[in-house]
C-alpha cells in the first residue's frame, strides 16, 4: 500500500503519452519484414551493389606510375651478382668478361668518394660474346651483359634527386579488416564475420626501400659505361585483396571489441628490362628482388606483378554513432601482419618467391587502424556492411629504413549472429 506521496506522483503521470517519431514504426516494420523473410530481393540487390563497388574500387584510385630511367632499346651488358664479405649486396664482373673491379664503400654521405666512382669503372665498348650461362632454354641471344658494378652503400650521386624522392614515396596497398555487429549490444550478440576488401594507396611506403641500392648499382654501372638510359624500372598501382574471418563481442551499449584472422595480398604492376638467372632459370627481377642469388641480365622490356602476402591479425574497438537498422560506426585498433612472402610474376619468365629476410622486410609489422562503416541488417541473422578508413604503420616494414606506410581502404563484410 503506497502513501499519499506515491499516489500523488501516479496521478500526475497517469495516462501520459508521447508522440513517437515516424522512424520508430519504420524500424519496427523493417524488423517485421526480416522476421517474415520478405526482403530477399533487397538482400540480393545489396550484395550485388556492394560486390560491384568493392571490385571497382581499385580502378578509381588512379595510376601514379613513375619512371626510374628512361627506356632505351639499346642492348648493353651482363651484370653478375655476388654477396660481399660484409653482408651487403655486391655486383661483380662475370668471369667471362674482360676485367673485374669493384667500387667500395660508396655512400650518400660521402660525395667525394662517390663522385670518384667512375674512375674505378671500366667502359664497355661492345657486346661481349659467350657471356651467358646455359641455365635454361631461354633464348640467350636476347641478353646483354654489363661489365662491372658495386652496390654496397652507393648513394644517390648517380640518380636524379627527384627520382630518389619518388623511390621513398611509392605506393602500397592495404585493406582494413572489418567487422560489424548486427544489432544493439543489448542482446550481447557474438558475431562471426567473413570479410573481403580491396583498395587504396599509401602516401609513403617501405615496399621499395630494400631495392634502392640495387637499382642504384645497376644505374651506376650503366652510367659508368655511358649507358645512362639502360635500366628501365617502372611501377604503378595494382589491386590489393583481403579475405578473412573474425569475431566481435559487444562490451557496452555502443562499444564492441573485435579480432580476426585474414590473408592480405598487396600488389603492384611494373615494367622492367632486367632479369636474374638462378638455378631455377631466368626469373623476373624487380627493384625488390635480392640479387645475391645469381647473374643479372638486361633484356627487352617485360611486364611483371609484385605481390606481398601477409597473414593479418587485426584487433580493434568500435563505437556506434548511429545505432539503428542502418548503422554508422567509427573504430580504431591495431593490426599485426605476418609476412608470408614476396612474389614477382611475369608471363615471360618464371614466378619467383622470396622470404621476408631475403628482401630485408620485417617479418612482423604493426599498423594503426581508424575506420568508419555503414551496415544494413539483411535479416534476423545476417548483416552486410561497407567500410572505409585509414591505416598507418606504427612499426617500419623495412629492417633498414623507417618507412611507415599509410593508406585509404574500402571493403565489404558479411556477418552472422552466432547467438
Amino acid at each position, binding site marked *: 500500500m*503506497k502513501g*499519499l*506521496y*506515491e499516489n*500523488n*506522483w*501516479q*496521478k*500526475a*503521470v497517469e*495516462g*501520459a*503519452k*508521447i*508522440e*513517437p*517519431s515516424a*522512424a*520508430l*514504426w519504420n*524500424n*519496427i*516494420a523493417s*524488423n*517485421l519484414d526480416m*522476421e*517474415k523473410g520478405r526482403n530477399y530481393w533487397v538482400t540480393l540487390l545489396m550484395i550485388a551493389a556492394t560486390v560491384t563497388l568493392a571490385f571497382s574500387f581499385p580502378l578509381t584510385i588512379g595510376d601514379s606510375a613513375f619512371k626510374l630511367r628512361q627506356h632505351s632499346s639499346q642492348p648493353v651488358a651482363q651484370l653478375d651478382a655476388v654477396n660481399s664479405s660484409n653482408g651487403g649486396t655486391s655486383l661483380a664482373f662475370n668471369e667471362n668478361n674482360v676485367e673485374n673491379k669493384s667500387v667500395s664503400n660508396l655512400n650518400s654521405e660521402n660525395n667525394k668518394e662517390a663522385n670518384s666512382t667512375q674512375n674505378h669503372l671500366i667502359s664497355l665498348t661492345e657486346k661481349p660474346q659467350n657471356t651467358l650461362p646455359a641455365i635454361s632454354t631461354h633464348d640467350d641471344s636476347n641478353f646483354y651483359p654489363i661489365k662491372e658494378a658495386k652496390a654496397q652503400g652507393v648513394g644517390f650521386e648517380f640518380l636524379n634527386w627527384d627520382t630518389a624522392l619518388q623511390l621513398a614515396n611509392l605506393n602500397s596497398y592495404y585493406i582494413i579488416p572489418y567487422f560489424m555487429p548486427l544489432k*544493439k*549490444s*543489448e542482446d550481447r550478440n557474438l558475431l562471426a564475420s567473413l570479410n573481403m576488401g580491396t583498395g587504396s594507396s599509401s602516401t609513403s611506403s617501405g615496399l621499395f626501400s630494400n631495392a634502392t641500392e640495387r637499382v642504384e648499382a645497376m644505374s651506376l654501372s650503366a652510367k659508368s659505361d655511358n649507358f645512362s638510359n639502360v635500366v628501365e624500372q617502372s611501377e604503378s598501382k595494382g589491386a590489393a585483396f583481403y579475405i578473412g574471418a573474425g569475431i566481435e563481442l559487444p562490451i*557496452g*551499449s555502443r562499444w564492441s571489441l573485435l579480432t580476426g584472422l585474414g590473408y592480405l595480398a598487396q600488389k603492384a604492376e611494373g615494367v622492367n628490362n632486367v632479369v636474374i638467372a638462378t638455378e631455377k632459370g631466368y626469373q623476373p627481377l624487380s627493384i625488390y628482388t635480392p640479387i645475391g642469388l645469381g647473374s643479372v641480365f638486361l633484356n627487352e622490356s617485360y611486364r611483371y606483378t609484385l605481390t606481398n602476402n601477409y597473414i593479418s591479425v587485426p584487433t580493434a574497438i568500435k563505437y556506434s554513432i548511429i*545505432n539503428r537498422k542502418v548503422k554508422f560506426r567509427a573504430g580504431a585498433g591495431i593490426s599485426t601482419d605476418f609476412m608470408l612472402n614476396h612474389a614477382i610474376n611475369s608471363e615471360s619468365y618464371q614466378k619467383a618467391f622470396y622470404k621476408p629476410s631475403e628482401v630485408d622486410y620485417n617479418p612482423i609489422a604493426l599498423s594503426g587502424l581508424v575506420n568508419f562503416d555503414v551496415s544494413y541488417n539483411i535479416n534476423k541473422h545476417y548483416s552486410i556492411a561497407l567500410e572505409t578508413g585509414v591505416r598507418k604503420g606504427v612499426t617500419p616494414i623495412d629492417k633498414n629504413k623507417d618507412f611507415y606506410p599509410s593508406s585509404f581502404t574500402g571493403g565489404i563484410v558479411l556477418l552472422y549472429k552466432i547467438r
Partner: protein
Amino acid sequence: MPISNLEHELIQKCCDGNRTAYRKFYEFYAGELLAIAFRYMKTKQEAEDVVQETFIKAFKNLASFNKQASLKTWLVRIAINTALNTLRKQHNSQLWNVDEFEDIELSVLPLDNYNYAELVSFIQQLPVGCRSVFNLYAIEGYSHKEIADLLSISQGTSKSQYHRAKILLQKMIVSEETRTKLKIL
C-alpha cells in the same frame, strides 16, 4: 484483468501476420510506452530505442502471451525490463553509487502545477540508480522486495535509493517553485 475482445482479436490477427493489425497494435500502445520509457532514459532517442525493442519482443512472443493477464501490463513490463537492461549495460558499476547528500524533512508537494514533460525532466535529472527505483516504486507500484529482486540489489539499497530520490526531487521542485515566484514578482 483479462484482455478485451478487441485486444483478443488484435492479438489473433498479429499472430496471423496481418500487417495492418501490427500497425494498429503499435498505434494503440506506442505513445504510452514511450512516455514510460522516457522516464527511465535520458533522451527521447534512447526511449524510442527501448520502445522499438519492446515491440519487437512483444510481436515475437505474442503467440505465447497469457491472455488471462492485461496486455498493457505485459507490454509495460517488457518495456521496463528493456529499459533497465539498457541502463544496466550503460552504467554498470555506477548504477548504485551513492554520493553523500544532505538529509532534509520530506513533505508532499503538489504536482498539479507541472505538466508531464516538466515532471519527467525532474525524474531524468536523478542519478540512474535512484531514478530506476523511484520509477518502479512510486509510479509503477512495485514493492521494495520486488525491486530488489528485479535489480539484484538488497531491499535496503532500494529504500535508500528511493529516499535519496525523494530528497533530490523535493529540492528540484522547491527550487523550481522559488524560481517561478521570483519571475512573478
